[in-house]
């Protein structure tokens, strides 16, 4: 006989391979004792290859179940053999041992996800927690990872962009000053002489007007 212990949703699944004689049961009993002594009292005992148990062995397992139930736990049997399941039902021992055909069915005795609002919410909670973890990873990534690096680079580019805009602005202002300054002055002088001529003509006209017709 070999024993294998796994855990699912906080339930201990003790799988027994091979038959159970008196010697093997001593080992199995030690195994269940060890599990319960570590405070775990929600146990599925998988007896896949067992076709029958002695009445004494069945009673001993029922005693473990009673002890588990004292503190709101349970020992549930998962046995494919129908005769074996019936053997537990026929025991003159209270509380009766629940025996199911498979581990999956046995696990449902402890409440399956989606069966109760609390169990359903456990699944939702798990998903929410997964989502939260991803969000957290993203946030942490922004601080120190690739996204963060890109964001910092983006911010630097934006600063550089502002500086460039300022420089272009200054250059545009500078371009408003004539590039060809001497030619520009010559034009001003030409305009000034035209203006002087115009003033001269105005003066002549005013003088003529004052003399009268």
């Amino acid at each position, binding site marked *: 006989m070999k024993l294998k212990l796994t855990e699912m949703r906080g339930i201990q699944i003790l799988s027994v391979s091979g038959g159970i004689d008196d010697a093997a049961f001593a080992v199995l009993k030690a195994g269940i*004792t060890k599990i319960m*002594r*570590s*405070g775990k009292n929600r146990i599925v005992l998988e007896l896949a290859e067992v076709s029958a148990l002695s009445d004494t062995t069945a009673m001993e397992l029922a005693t473990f179940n009673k002890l588990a139930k004292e503190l709101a736990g349970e020992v549930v049997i998962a046995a494919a053999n129908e005769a074996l399941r019936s053997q537990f039902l026929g025991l003159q021992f209270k509380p009766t041992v629940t025996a199911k055909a498979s581990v999956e069915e046995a696990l449902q005795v402890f409440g399956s996800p989606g069966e109760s*609002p609390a169990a359903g919410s456990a699944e939702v*909670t798990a998903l929410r*927690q997964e989502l939260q973890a991803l969000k*957290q990873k993203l*946030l*942490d990534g922004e601080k120190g990872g690739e996204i963060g690096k890109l964001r910092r680079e983006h911010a630097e580019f934006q600063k550089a962009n502002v500086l460039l805009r300022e420089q272009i602005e200054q250059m545009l202002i500078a371009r408003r000053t004539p590039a060809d300054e001497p030619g520009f002055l010559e034009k001003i002088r030409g305009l000034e002489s035209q203006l002087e001529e115009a003033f001269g003509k105005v003066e002549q006209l005013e003088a003529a007007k004052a003399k009268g017709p």
Partner: protein
Amino acid sequence: MSHPVILREMSTQAKEIMSRELLTAFKNSTVEEVLKLFMHHRITGVPVVDANGKMIGVCSEYDVIRQVAKAKKNHEGLYQKPIQFSRKVEAVKETMPLKDVVRRFVNKKFRRLPVIDSKGKLVGIITRRDLMRIFYYQARLPEDG
């Protein structure tokens, strides 16, 4: 202080008795999310972990009550805010002997003790209820039969 019951269990370590089915919160979990965790799972507190599973604190019923009580007004928006939690938290290593775990519970009146591995990652939790079950079954099922 002596713990005769426990001293016989020198070899039992925290990892053997802890619950591995973990409910946790994150630093950006909302008050509503944590409140629902407490109610649906009938628990009084949850470890707070970072994205890598490293424990950074514990959020208890007390923390939630304090956060709500400190607010100027109890309104819906308050429950969408990130939780306030205690960052000064004691955890035990998974290899800690049971007797030392019990000593911590007794001397410091902890309600729960998170269990961490050598890298500080949260791997389990031990509650007062777990200890009571251990005590009871160790008394009812002696190792020597």
